[in-house]
Structures are given as C-alpha cells and as structure tokens.
C-alpha cells in the first residue's frame, strides 16, 4: 500500500524534466524558463512543449499512474524513463543511476534488464508466434533458447493464454494480444514496467478484467509500474499514487483519495465531477478510527465505498479490519453518504 512505501526506496526520480519538440529546443526552453506558457511558446517559436519541468518521485513496488488527456504529454513522459525520447533538460534517475548519462551500450543493457514496456498498440512482432513474441525480450538479452521458451511458456500461462503458444498474434483478439504484450514485459523480470495506455485500446469489459488481473498480479510481483492512462476511473482503480498531467506539467500528485477529496484546481475538479466516487474513496479514509466494539459485518481496509454500501441494508455499522483481521475502525451509512455528497459541487 502507498503509505507503507512512503519510506521505501525510490525506483524512478524525475527532476525538472522538460521536453521541447522542434529544431531549436534551447531557444524555446529559455522562453519557457522566462515564464511563458506552452501556448505562448508555441505561438512565438513554433516549438511544441511536450513536458514542462516535470518532477516525480516513484517509490519501488507501487503502481504509479500518470493521468492526462490526449496531448497532455503523458506518452512523452513515459518514454523518457527508458529514454526512447531524450529530454531537453532535466535529470532522470532509476534506482540511483542517471539514465541520461548512459552510453549507448549501457542504455541497451538497461533496457534489456531493468525496464520492460507494454504499448497501447501492442507492438507485437506479426511474423512471430505468441511464444516467440513473449520470449523476444529474453532473446534480445541473449538468453538461451530452452530457458527463454520455458520462461515464456510460464508467463503465457500466468496471463491466461495457455494453448495459444503457437498462434500468430493476428489470430488473437485485442485483449489477448495485450495479454501477449503483458507477458512479454513480465517475462523480462525487470523491476520496472512501463505501461503506455496499455488497456486503452480494449473494450470496456475486457479492460476492466485486465485491470483486475494487473492488480492481482501486482500483489505477488511487487514491481514498480508506471501506468499511463487518459481514463480517470482506471487511474483511481489501479493507482497507488496518481499524477495528473496537463499541457506537459504536473497539476497534482498524490494518493487517489487526495485527488478526489481535495482536487488542486478546476481542471482536476472536472475529472472528479465525472468520476464514480464510491469506487474512488477507500473506506479507511473516512472511517471512525480507533478501538470500537466488534461489528457483525466487516470489510478489509482496502475496501472502497461501493463495497460497503450494500452492507448497510442489513447493518448499521460496518467494521473495517486490517490484514490480520483486527478491527481498526467502523463506518456508518451516514459517513459514507456524507463523503460522497461533500465532493459534489453545488451540494456540499
């Protein structure tokens, strides 16, 4: 959980990362530093600001979601972590190593061993079978055929594609293809997984299923996952922490509840208005803390408001228990309703 990781080691640290697209980025950078906005820089120099002074701390073992609309720079941001895009200014540290100072060879071996990536458009090799696609990362790394096929077979099974090993990617549905993409990234056994709108191209039901699976997988894998999405619901569902990006700049960064309960500005408020708050708000953040008499019905501390709502039909109080089953607090229907209503503009 997020709070457990706050003191944990930093996996990725971005410091003042700025990216400007165009023939003379330094000139545009000077304007940007002088306080001009993205639109002004674009009007004056015809340079596009992709990222504007982005600083993020991503702790190891958490799912960190970067949320933004199209054009907000989120896909640019994720490509800086494995340096598919070179920043104009700034510093990117991964487990303390400066990614930007790496030589070509060092960068290649970093990409082969430390970061794996899942793509919105899957990026599968159409001329290879599923198992050869999954084994691709290991093949590039130079792992022997037998070992890499065994590893690939294991991950194909984990993502639920057993039996499709020798199919061609084009014979699979979109959801299945993205499972292949996920298995390919997981088979690298890298500490960091970059997911660039990995589920955005999928149908809503399939997407929701994939989100659940990712959460389940993460419980046993404890990878550092940087997840990009334009879907606020998705961000709230899977994110341990969320950063909201607009015009290449970070608007707010925090736990999902922080963003839902205390949106930093109008732009984020707009997202929050549309969102299913019952799903976004954890029960533990609104419960009455402390030792109380045990309740007949209890939910885990990971539960969200939507999980407890049906229970109020039968019970007045619902307990909240931690991992060991000890009750750490309780909630009433009133508290839940208050939490949901408070954040609806015009009501609270």
């Amino acid at each position, binding site marked *: 959980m997020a709070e457990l990781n706050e003191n944990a080691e930093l996996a990725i640290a971005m410091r003042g990362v700025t990216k400007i697209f165009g023939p003379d980025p330094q000139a545009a950078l000077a304007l940007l530093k002088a306080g001009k906005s993205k639109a002004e820089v674009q009007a004056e120099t015809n340079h596009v600001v992709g990222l504007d002074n982005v600083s993020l701390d991503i702790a190891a073992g958490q799912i960190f979601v970067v949320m933004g609309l199209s054009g907000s720079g989120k896909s640019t941001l994720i490509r800086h972590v494995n340096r*598919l895009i070179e920043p104009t200014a700034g510093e990117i540290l991964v487990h303390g190593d400066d990614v930007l100072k790496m030589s070509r060879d060092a960068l290649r071996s970093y990409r*082969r061993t430390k970061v*794996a*990536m899942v*793509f919105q458009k899957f990026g599968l*090799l*159409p*001329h290879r079978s599923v198992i050869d696609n999954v084994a691709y990362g290991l093949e590039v790394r130079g792992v022997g055929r037998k070992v890499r096929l065994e590893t690939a077979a294991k991950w194909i099974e984990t993502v639920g594609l057993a039996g499709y090993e020798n199919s061609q990617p084009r014979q699979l549905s979109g959801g299945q293809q993205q499972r292949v993409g996920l298995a390919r990234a997981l088979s690298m056994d890298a500490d960091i997984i970059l997911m660039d709108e990995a589920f955005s191209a999928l149908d809503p039901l399939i997407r929701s299923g994939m989100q659940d699976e990712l959460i389940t997988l993460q419980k046993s894998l404890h990878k550092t996952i940087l997840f990009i999405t334009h879907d606020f619901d998705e961000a709230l569902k899977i994110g341990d922490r969320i950063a909201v990006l607009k015009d290449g700049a970070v608007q707010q960064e925090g736990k999902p509840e922080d963003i839902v309960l205390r949106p930093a500005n109008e732009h984020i408020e707009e997202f929050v208005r549309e969102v299913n708050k019952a799903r976004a708000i954890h029960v533990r953040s609104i419960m009455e803390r402390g030792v109380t008499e045990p309740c007949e019905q209890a939910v885990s501390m990971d539960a969200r408001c939507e999980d407890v709502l049906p229970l109020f039909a039968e019970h007045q109080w619902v307990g909240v228990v931690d991992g060991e089953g000890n009750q750490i607090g309780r909630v009433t229907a009133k508290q839940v309703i208050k939490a949901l209503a408070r954040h609806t503009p015009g009501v609270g």
Partner: protein
Amino acid sequence: MFPQLIDTRPWRRAVDDGLNWVVRNWGGTFEAAAYPLLMLLKAIEDLLVATPWWLIIALLTGIAWLATRRWQLPAVVFAALMFLGIMDLWKDAMTTMALMIAATLTAILISIPVGVWMSRSINLRQVITPILDLMQTLPSFVYLIPTVMIFGPGKIPALIATIVYAAPPLVRLTDLGLRSVDPAVMEASRAFGTNPRQRLFGVQIPLALPTILAGVNQTTMMALSMVVIASMIGAGGLGYQVLQGIGRLEVSRGLFAGLGIVALAIVFDRITQAFGRQLQARIGLQEAR
C-alpha cells in the same frame, strides 16, 4: 535556332577521348573485374542447358505448386514451358533464363544493401534517388555502347546493361519496405534494448520481405524486357531469334520467339508474386478479406 553560347565541341571531344583512354588503359582491368560475372552467367547457363528439359519443367511446376498449393498456377507454368519446347525455343529460352537469373541475382546482391543503407539516411536517399531515375530513364543504348567499347561485344556488356536497367526497382522497394515497417513495432523493439543489427534482421527485413519480393519480381520482369536489346550485343537467346526474325522479315520467327519471352515472363512473374502473397499472408498484412 538557339544561339550558340558556348562551343561544346571540346566537351564532346573530351568525353570521347576520355572513353578511348579508359578503353586503352583500363579495358583489361575492367574485363578482369567483370570476369566473375561472366563465370556466374556461364555456370547458370551450362547448368540449365545440361539439365534435361523434363526435369526443369518438373522443378518449375513443383515450385509453382509450393507457392500456391493449387493446381491452376502449376498448369499455367507447365503449359508455358511446353510451348517453349514445342516451338523449338528450348535452348534459346534457357540462355535467356540464365541471363535473367544472373542479372537478378547480381541485382539482389547489390540492391538490397543499397536499399538498406538508403532507408537509414535521408541524405543518401537524396543522392541515390536521382541516380536511380537516371538508370531507369537513360536510353539503354547510351550506356550500352560505352560498355561494349570497354568489354567488347558479348555476354558481359549484355549482363551489365541488364543489371543497370533492372536493379533500380529493387533498391526503391527495399528502401520503401524497410521504411514502412510499423513504427509501433520498431519502437517496441527499441524499448527491449535491441541494437540496430537486431532490429534490421529481426524486425525490419522480415516485415519488409513481401515488399522486397515485389522488387525482385519487378527486377526479373525488367531483366526479361531487356533481352532483345541485350541480344544485339551478343547475349543470344530468345532475343536473338526476335532480332533475326526482324532482320529476315520472318514474322513467324519473331512472333514465336516474342511469345516465348512472354511465356518466360508469365512463369517468373506468377511464381514470385505467389511467393509474395504467401509471405504476406504469413505475416498477416493481408488480414481483411
């Protein structure tokens, strides 16, 4: 009349003298350099002539079946080859086929690396594209005559002229094929830490192969279309029959030899196209049916 601004006669004389100088001083060297080409051509021709006719028919019909797994194309190939045999054109057809195969092989050897190189550098593309345009549009006699002067009449200038004419489409299509590989796939490959060689051989070339094969198809067709001109400088084969037919006003000889060239063209065109389609289907580019 356009006024004479400069006297161009010295230029012409310089070009002519220059060529003569090259022929006198370097003729032997050039001939020696082209010797491997001649050997290749001779080896292919000897092999084709020495192979019994029924074996060649069986082989090509078999290849046609492998390329399509249906009976139609093998039947067409069989009929076209039988036509060549029945019309007493077999030996000439083998000579022409040898020239075409030698030219195509050499063109593949040269064009694919050039195409690969071109796909990686915009500057190089800007230099090579006009050269390719020149190779395709310059009337072949213009470079045929200097090559004949350097190498003497025979198979080498015929082969070189055929290569010059037939290589450009393969260069262009190799370049195009490599550049039009899905950028999402290329990026994924890069993200996994591939080096340029791994990307070229593991991703780009396999995915561009259908396009490259279309280039090979174009090259074979253009090589065949050069046979009549090539026969003027001693390549022999079906083209020579056409020439004789024209010279002696024997319409039938020219017609049948001409149809023989068409028959060869059909055989090689259909077989290479069928392989291209098969490859495309395997890669899954022909998804929508």
